[in-house]
C-alpha cells in the first residue's frame, strides 16, 4: 500500500518507502567511534556488571551440577528405562539449533548478498559459537563414563579398536566438532579488520598490544581485502552445506532409529528449519536488549527486526508443515504404532507438552504476518521467547513422548525431570550469557568494516550526481 503523502519517518527511505537498513546521518568515523567506543571505554557500564555477575551465578550452578553428575553418575537425572534420553539431548538439540541462525545470517545471507546481515552477523556468529559450546557439552556429559569420550575419535589407540562409523552419534561428533571449528574460523577471519580498527583506536598500551596481536598485522591493503572477500565467500559456501548437514546429522540421531515418532524421513529438513527458526528467535532475544542498552537503534534497526520476523515466519511455516505431515503420515501409514504415537502425543499423559508446542510454534507466531507486529520491538522480544520455548518443547515432545510409550506396553514409562536436569539446563543458559557478556565487552560485536560499506559514502558515484542521503 503506497501512500502518496510525504514520509517524515527517518527510518523510511523517502524514495522507495522501505525501511532503511541503517539510519541516515552516519559517517565512517561516527560508526567507528560508536562501536569501538563500546569496547575501548575504560568505563564498564553497571548494567554489564549486573548481567555478568548473574550469568556467573549460572556458570557456578553449571559447575556444581556437572561436578555432582561426575561424582554420582547420570542417575541423578530423571533418565531411566524406557526414557534414556532426557534433558541432556533435548538441550543439546536445542542449543545446536540456536547456533544455526548465526551461520545462516553470516553465510547464507552473504551468498544472497543481503546487506541487512551486516549489522547483526557478528553477534549472530558469536551466538553460534557460544551455543555450540553449550551444546557440545551435552554429548559428553550425558554419557555414563565421560572420561572415555576420547574413544569417539578415530585415533590409533593400543586397543586397535575404531569407532563405529554407522552410528549417527558418531557423526554428531564430527558434525559438531567441524561446525565449531569452522564457525570459530569464520568468526575470527571476519573480525580481523575490526580488530585492527580497535588496535588503531586503543589508547592503552595493553589494548594496543592485545588487539595488535590478534589483528595479525592487518593493514587493509587492496590485496588484503581481495583475499579477505574471497575467503569470506569461500567460507560462506562451505558453511552453508555444513549448517544444513550438521542439523541433518543431529536429526539422524532420531530418524535412523526404529521408534514410532522418530523413524521419519521428514526429520532432516524439518529439523534444519526448526533450527533456523529458534536461532532467529535467539538473535532477537539478544539483539533487542543490546540495541536498547548500547543505543544501537540506528544500526540494528526496525528493518532488521522486521526481516528477522519474516525469516521466522517462513521457517515457522516449514516447521508447521512438518508437524502437519507427521500427523498426516501417522494416519496415512495405516500403522497401528504410528497412529498410537500421534494419539499419545496429543492426548496421552504428556499431551500438554504437544499443545504448548503448537501454541508457541504455530499459533502465536502467526501474528508476525502483521507488519505492525513485526515492527513492534517489545512484541517481537516477547515473541522470541515464545518461539524459543516452543522449540524447546518440540525436542521434548519428539524425544520424551516417543520414548515413554512405544511398542511394548509392558515397557511404558514416564519422565519427571529432577532438579539436576533443571540445574544443568539453567547452568548452560548462564554459561552462554557469561561468554556473550565477555564477547560484547572485549570484541567488536558489530562489524564496523561491513557497516562502513553500507554507508552512501562507500559507493562510487558519477561526478555530477548528488550524493544520496540514505544508507541502503
Amino acid at each position: 500500500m503506497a501512500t502518496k503523502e510525504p514520509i517524515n519517518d527517518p527510518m523510511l527511505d523517502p524514495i522507495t518507502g522501505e525501511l532503511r537498513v541503517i539510519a541516515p546521518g552516519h559517517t565512517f568515523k561516527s560508526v567507528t567511534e560508536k562501536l569501538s567506543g563500546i569496547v575501548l571505554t575504560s568505563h564498564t557500564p553497571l548494567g554489564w556488571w549486573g548481567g555478568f555477575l548473574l550469568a556467573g551465578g549460572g556458570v557456578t550452578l553449571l559447575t556444581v551440577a556437572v561436578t555432582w553428575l561426575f561424582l554420582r553418575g547420570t542417575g541423578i537425572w530423571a533418565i531411566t528405562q524406557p526414557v534414556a534420553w532426557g534433558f541432556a539431548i533435548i538441550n543439546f538439540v536445542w542449543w545446536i539449533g540456536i547456533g544455526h541462525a548465526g551461520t545462516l545470517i553470516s553465510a547464507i545471507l552473504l551468498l544472497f548478498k543481503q546487506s541487512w546481515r551486516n549489522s547483526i552477523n557478528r553477534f549472530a556468529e558469536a551466538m553460534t559459537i557460544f551455543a555450540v559450546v553449550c551444546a557440545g557439552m551435552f554429548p559428553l556429559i550425558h554419557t555414563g563414563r565421560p572420561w572415555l569420550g576420547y574413544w569417539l575419535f578415530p585415533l590409533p589407540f593400543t586397543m586397535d579398536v575404531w569407532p563405529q562409523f554407522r552410528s549417527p552419534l558418531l557423526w554428531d561428533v564430527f558434525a559438531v566438532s567441524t561446525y565449531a571449528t569452522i564457525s570459530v574460523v569464520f568468526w575470527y577471519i571476519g573480525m580481523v579488520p575490526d580488530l585492527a580498527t580497535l588496535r588503531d583506536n586503543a589508547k592503552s598500551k595493553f589494548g594496543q598490544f592485545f588487539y595488535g596481536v590478534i589483528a595479525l598485522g592487518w593493514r587493509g591493503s587492496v590485496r588484503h581485502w581481495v583475499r579477505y572477500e574471497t575467503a569470506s565467500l569461500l567460507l560462506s559456501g562451505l558453511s552453508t552445506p555444513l549448517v544444513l548437514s550438521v542439523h541433518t546429522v543431529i536429526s539422524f540421531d532420531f530418524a535412523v532409529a526404529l521408534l514410532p515418532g522418530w523413524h521419519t524421513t521428514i526429520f532432516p529438513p524439518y529439523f534444519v528449519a526448526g533450527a533456523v527458526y529458534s536461532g532467529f528467535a535467539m538473535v532477537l532475544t539478544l539483539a533487542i536488549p543490546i540495541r536498547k542498552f548500547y543505543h544501537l537503534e540506528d544500526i540494528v534497526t526496525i528493518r532488521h527486526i522486521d526481516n528477522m520476523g519474516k525469516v521466522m515466519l517462513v521457517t515457522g511455516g516449514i516447521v508447521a508443515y512438518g508437524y502437519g505431515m507427521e500427523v498426516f503420515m501417522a494416519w496415512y501409514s495405516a500403522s497401528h504404532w504410528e497412529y498410537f504415537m500421534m494419539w499419545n502425543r496429543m492426548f496421552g499423559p504428556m499431551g500438554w507438552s504437544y499443545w504448548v508446542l503448537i501454541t508457541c510454534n504455530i499459533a502465536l507466531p502467526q501474528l508476525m504476518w502483521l507488519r505492525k507486529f513485526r515492527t513492534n520491538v517489545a512484541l517481537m522480544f516477547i515473541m522470541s521467547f515464545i518461539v524459543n520455548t516452543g522449540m524447546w518443547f518440540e525436542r521434548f515432545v519428539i524425544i520424551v513422548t516417543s520414548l515413554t510409550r512405544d511398542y511394548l506396553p509392558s515397557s511404558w514409562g514416564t519422565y519427571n525431570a529432577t532438579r539436576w536436569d533443571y540445574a544443568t539446563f539453567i547452568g548452560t543458559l548462564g554459561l552462554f550469557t557469561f561468554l556473550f557478556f565477555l564477547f560484547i565487552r572485549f570484541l567488536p560485536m558489530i562489524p564496523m568494516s561491513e557497516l562502513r560499506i553500507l554507508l552512501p559514502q562507500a559507493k562510487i558515484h558519477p561526478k555530477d550526481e548528488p550524493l544520496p542521503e540514505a544508507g541502503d
Partner: protein
Amino acid sequence: MAQIFDRSSNALARMSLVLTGLIVIALGVTLDQLQRSPWVTRQGQRADQPVPFSHKHHVQGLGIQCQYCHTSVEKSSYAGIPPTRTCMNCHAQIWTNAELLEPVRNSWATGQSIVWTKVHDLPDFVYFSHEIHVNKGMGCSTCHGRVDEMPIMYQQNTLQMEWCLNCHRHPAANIRPTSEIYNMAWTGPSELKPE
C-alpha cells in the same frame, strides 16, 4: 607515535608458527608415550615380592619344568601360582635356615598364604585362558619371554589389546609344535619364519 610492535616481532610471529608445529608434535609424542611407554605398560619392571623367587635358578639352574609348579596351565584358564606346599617339597630340607625363605616357612607354619605380587595382571573384563593357548601350540616364551633367564619375574610384553590382536590375526608366526611348548629356547621354523 611509536610503532606498537618493533622489528623483532616479525621473527616472533614466524617463530610462533614453528612453535605451533612443535607443540603439535610434542602432543602427539606425549599421547603415544602415555599409552605405549614401558612406564605405563610395566614392561621390564621388577615388582617387589615377599620372597625374591628366581625363575633363572629354578628353571635354568635346576632344570625344573614349568608345569611342576604351574600345574593347571594345560587344564585350566588359570596357570596357577604354586602353594607353599610346593616350595616345602624341597625347602623342608634344603636351605632350611636361609633367612630369604623365612616367609615361606612362616606361611607353612601358620597356614597364611604368601602374598605374591601379580606381574601379569590383566583387567577383569578380559577372560584369558591358558589352557587353549598351550594346547594349540603357543609356547610359554612367546608371551612371557625367556622366563628361564629372569632372576626376578617381569613382564616381557605389553599385554595390550593390539598385541593380542596382532597374534590372533596372524598366529602362524608364533605357533610351535606342542612338544616344544615348554622349551624356553625354542625358535623353530614356521611358514612366516623360514629357516
